[in-house]
């Protein structure tokens, strides 16, 4: 067993730390306040090859391993959860899915642009009335000659408003349940495809979240991903990637919260000494530090399984469940260390606290993670 970073991982960490410190942290509060999608920074990420970190060199990426992929998400999460979300969706949920299930033609069409951060994807699974129970979706894809015609709507889709292509899951057989779901790559400029931005979110204000409306969208059969009826399996496999970078992002956000809390605890004087010297504040800091390290190790363990080329569903669920809850505990404690000041947007822990909340909800609620883990542990499924 080896807990050291490899030279590549160390180098990625150093490079990302500098990027986040210079290009993200100084601006994150402003993006949040203005609900501004940070296009300039996203473009810079593209130019620096950040989106291509864990995509193969063949398609213009750097071909680095799963731990490097997590380090990128962790560092982005340290600076701005919204930006981490852009990365997670574009790379983990879409590019890696095309890589795993796409035809060579689809890979050549999308991956080089995605690795360069010039082409963005979004992941259209959730619907207004279909969340945890993904198989209950009502979006349909009806065969029509060499085409499929898609109708329906997708809800809470990160990046949908800015994406060039949407990975849409739709029912090709309404009576076949999960087995009747098929995945399609739908280009934004396809007639009948539109999006509507969602505002007034509690957090992730700098990320784009939108509804996708599919109104008689005709896509060629060549845009089908992974074959007819394979959609549900693709969606689940994809979440093994998406949840992984969510978990990594949580570790980074929590680390930022801890770092801010430590700094503040050393500066803030009460009862004649820095609050860092008060035992109950030390308890908060110690609990945060241990909690974060547990989460980080779960993420890297999942990455280790991925690097071996093995299925990582269980390890990813462990990491996503733990880290998403952990970042909420840590953000809560960080605000506690800041006292009343932590309740103000003047300090970044307030944003971290709001941004933390989504993590136990999207890409499978904590309860869904528990049910998946329960199934692994017991061999008894609580679904169906």
């Amino acid at each position, binding site marked *: 067993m080896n807990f050291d970073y490899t030279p590549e991982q160390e180098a990625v960490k150093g490079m990302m730390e500098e990027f986040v410190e210079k290009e993200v942290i100084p601006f994150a509060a402003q993006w949040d306040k203005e609900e501004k999608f940070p296009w300039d920074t996203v473009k810079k990420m593209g130019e*620096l090859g950040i989106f291509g970190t864990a995509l193969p060199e063949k398609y213009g990426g750097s071909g680095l391993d799963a731990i490097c992929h997590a380090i990128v998400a962790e560092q982005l999460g340290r600076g701005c959860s919204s930006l981490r979300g852009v990365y997670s969706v574009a790379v983990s949920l879409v590019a890696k899915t095309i890589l795993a299930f796409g035809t060579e033609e689809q890979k050549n069409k999308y991956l080089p642009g995605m690795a360069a951060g010039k082409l963005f994807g979004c992941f259209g699974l959730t619907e207004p009335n279909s969340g945890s129970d993904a198989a209950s979706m009502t979006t349909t894809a009806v065969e029509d000659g060499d085409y499929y015609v898609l109708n329906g709507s997708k809800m809470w889709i990160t990046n949908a408003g800015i994406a060039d292509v949407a990975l849409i899951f739709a029912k090709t057989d309404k009576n076949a349940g999960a087995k009747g779901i098929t995945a399609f790559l739908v280009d934004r400029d396809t007639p009948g495809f539109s999006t509507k931005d969602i505002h007034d979110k509690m957090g992730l204000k700098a990320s784009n979240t939108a509804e996708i409306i599919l109104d008689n969208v005709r896509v060629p059969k060549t845009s089908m991903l992974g074959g007819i009826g394979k959609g549900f399996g693709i969606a689940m496999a994809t979440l093994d990637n998406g949840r992984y970078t969510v978990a990594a992002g949580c570790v980074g956000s929590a680390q930022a919260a801890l770092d801010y809390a430590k700094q503040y605890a050393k500066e803030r004087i009460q009862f004649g000494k820095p609050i860092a010297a008060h035992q109950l504040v030390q308890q908060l800091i110690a609990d945060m530090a241990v909690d974060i390290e547990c989460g980080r190790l779960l993420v890297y363990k999942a990455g280790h399984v991925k690097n071996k080329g093995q299925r990582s569903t269980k390890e990813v669920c462990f990491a996503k469940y733990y880290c998403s809850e952990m970042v909420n505990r840590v953000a809560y404690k960080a605000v506690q260390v800041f006292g009343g000041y932590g309740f103000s947007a003047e300090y970044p822990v307030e944003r971290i606290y709001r941004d933390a909340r989504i993590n136990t909800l999207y890409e499978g609620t904590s309860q869904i993670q528990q049910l998946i883990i329960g199934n692994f542990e017991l061999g008894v499924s609580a679904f169906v």
Partner: protein
Amino acid sequence: MEIIVCIKQVPDTTEVKIDPEKGTLIREGVPSIVNPFDEYAVEAALRIKEEKGGKVTVITMGPPQAVDALRKCVAMGADDAVLVSDRAFAGSDTWSTSYTLAKAIQALGAFDLILCGKQAIDGDTAQVGPGIAEHLKISQVTYVQKVLGVKEDAIEVERGIEGGYEVIETPLPAVLTIDKSANQPRLPSMMGTMKALKKEIKTLTARDINVKEGFYGMDGSPTRVKRTFTPPPRKGGRMLGGEMEEALRELVKILREEKIV
């Protein structure tokens, strides 16, 4: 265009720790970075190369761990990196450091331009860049805040001076020291970072660069640091409270007592 950029690895802290016995910097245990001013020099070099073609070689004199600083510059886009390192160079002052670097640059072959940061943030002397020019007997322009134009055999730059700037054209080869208003240094890319990791970095020792005995290291250094210290922090001023009129009266009294008015 063959461009050499001289860089220095410095401690990443404003609180530089000093060995009280030797009067030299303690580098152990302090995270190291590329001297920030040198990053402006690297950026200036990369921009000239992008416009005119050629090659950018970064060079540093320092202990073996200084390769990390060189790798950072390769990650930014430098083509080649050279470490000048020898136990015999330890304790060099700015005179022998600039002599050693000049000899190393000569050993590398022909060059058109040498760029340095305007100064290092640890020693703050701003002497090594000009020293290199003197040892090589070529012209120099310090505090360059803008590169205006590069020709085959000359370069035109804007040089910062008190209350303004001068425009200077100098024949090549020349040494320029770059100020931070010159540009915004680029961040390393993912590909650059990986390229830098794999880059083989050449080390030049005293024997490789034809330095004269007694011109380098502690023995070759005409200056000695007698004492280095951190100045004591400024104490807070005195606050005069109470009513405005009373405070003013008190102020006038103090100013008279101190013979300021």
